[in-house]
């Protein structure tokens, strides 16, 4: 039975990394949001499985937050914002898809090397979870730096945060996981409201970061 528990947890965590890769090459905002919903759904499954395996019922709360808030409410809200802003065109990425993917593979390799080397003492499940979680975190950072659009940067940040929740649930018996996931949800809600406020106030004509660049730096 232990073998099965491990395999399922391993598969789910691995799927999260794959979903991160899928985020990496999406070049349309709608598709990006759909993949993000999938990302959050896989996270919810993974957390729920951890709750079951570790006999930690409080983790079901975290799984429910991931499912309801991240996989449904946030993507729908962002979808509506995109429609209102009329920015459902192609995403301009800073690097080509091929280069980004190679970079992503490099980051995953890096996190495997780092995490597996420093955690020989930990149990196998926690080790793999940490390695996968670090991969998701680094891939999230990569998404944030290769995108020039505020909405897709936010998606990158949210996927990064999913990686953190994976790490927190993988660390067996860690206290405050639920509180931390709630704190992050508040943070993300603020970000989404922030994008929305930009629109409401009509201060920005577009949410393309490149358009914001002219306000950056010294005021002349």
């Amino acid at each position, binding site marked *: 039975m232990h073998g099965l528990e491990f395999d399922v947890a391993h598969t789910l965590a691995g799927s999260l990394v794959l979903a991160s890769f899928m985020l990496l090459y999406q070049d349309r905002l709608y598709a990006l949001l759909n993949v993000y919903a999938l990302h959050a759904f896989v996270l919810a499954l993974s957390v729920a499985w951890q709750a079951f395996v570790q006999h930690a019922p409080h983790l079901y709360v975290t799984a429910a937050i991931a499912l309801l808030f991240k996989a449904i409410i946030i993507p729908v809200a962002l979808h509506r914002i995109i429609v209102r802003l009329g920015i459902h065109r192609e995403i301009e990425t800073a690097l080509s898809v091929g280069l980004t993917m190679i970079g992503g593979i490099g980051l995953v390799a890096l996190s495997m090397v*780092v*995490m597996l*080397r*420093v*955690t020989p*003492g*930990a149990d196998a499940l*926690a080790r793999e979870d*940490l390695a996968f*979680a*670090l991969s998701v*975190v680094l891939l999230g*950072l990569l998404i*944030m730096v290769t995108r020039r659009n*505020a909405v897709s*940067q936010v998606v990158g*940040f949210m996927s*990064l*945060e999913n990686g*953190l929740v994976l*790490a*927190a649930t993988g*660390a*067996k*018996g*860690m*206290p*405050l996981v639920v*509180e*931390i996931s709630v*704190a992050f949800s*508040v*943070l993300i809600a*603020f*970000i989404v409201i*922030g994008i929305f*406020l*930009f629109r409401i*106030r009509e*201060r*920005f004509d577009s949410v393309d970061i490149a358009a*914001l660049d002219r*306000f*950056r730096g*010294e*005021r*002349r």
Partner: protein
Amino acid sequence: MTFDALTALLLIPAVAAAILALLPDYRLTAALNVLAALLTLATAMSLFVVEPASGQYLLVDDLNKVFIVLTTFVGFTTSIFSASYISHEIEIGRLTPTFVRFYHAMYQTLMFAMNLALVANNIGLMWVAVEVATLTTVLMVGIYRTHEALEAAWKYFILGSVGIALALFGTILVYMAARPVIGEGTDAMVWSVLVARAAQFDPALLDVAFVFLLLGYGTKVGLAPLHAWLPDAHAEGPTPISAVLSGLLLNVALYALLRFKMIMAANAGAIAPGPLMVAMGLISVIFAALMLYRRRDIKRMFAYSSIEHMGIIVFAFGMGGALANFAGLLHMIMHSLTKSAIFFAVGHVAQVKGTQKIADIGGLTVTNPVLGWGLVLGVVAIVGLPPLGIFMSEFLIVSSTFARQPWLTAILVLGILIALGGLFSRLNVVVFGEPKGETKPAEASYVPMFAHLALVLAAGIYLPPLLVAGFSNVAKLLG
């Protein structure tokens, strides 16, 4: 949980925030804001008389007492400055009373979050508190709703969030390192337990954890190259918030870093955190000093000066040893007092002249002598000229590290001198020469500014032995 000074320290600002959110009249809320800050300060001072017991979640020791008193003191003086600043902003219509109500509630929420971060004994709780502090300051930075303010808030928000995310990953890794030794559950996140048993932790895991914590909390300290949010946030937000950001929030993030440094130091096998901190500190000093020269915006210039000083402080703590830690601690306090005094002056200057552009401000010593000379005194203090307090702390840092690392210290001194040149050349334009811009008298409360500068001057001339003994004690704790 019993009711003691620690609970009061958190409860007063939390209750005040709720009350201030409900009251409409801005004069009343400004007065209540000052009152709440004063009560918090009194509570903080009482920690020296009766030390409450530490528990699983809250902790008080010699290290955080210094930080708490500094935070509540600058929080109190800034609330006085804020009252006169905000009433002027309402008169000229830059802020509406609704926003001011929100502003005061956020001010107290920020005080609550910073106090919580300082007294938290649980590294998860500390992380949540730093996040809350970040969120409240993001909201306040964007309060003017201009293009620049919103962009600054957004940038601060995204970079701050990434920093906070990395810090959380580091926190999780510390828990992972502690779990095999301490066992599952809350104990493995309690700082006092962690530091007591850190010697048995897996050093490799701690190493990785510290790198994430340094990058994460280092973003909030404003260390180069993670500082990009800092100048914008300082320049575009209301000036009282610039004063609190520079004077306090950067310290709180540094405090979090120091707590983890102490865990690292307790483990013989882990990498020494010192060299990493020294390197980032020196990069910050040199980078920020060079950036001072071409600044056009006065608040942005002093924001870069904050990066420089945080670099000096991190350098001192990175070098370690009783004397360097003592000097770093002293420098941190002196910098908080001086920099917030400068921002008090700059806030009134910007209100009098109606601009923050250095080129449009001139001859302040002629048009507004008190304000102008106050600013001169503040800058003389911040660049580290004798006999003011920063000279003494910088001198201590240099003299305590020179024997060990002459070349590194030489780089530090070079950075300090470059910054001195930069700040004076810009100051010259602002305070001397032909008066430029509007020349109306300032409706300012000078008390907070001169109180801070008087303290800095007094510390530069004479430090009471009691204070020296207290600081040496903390310096030993820091290892």
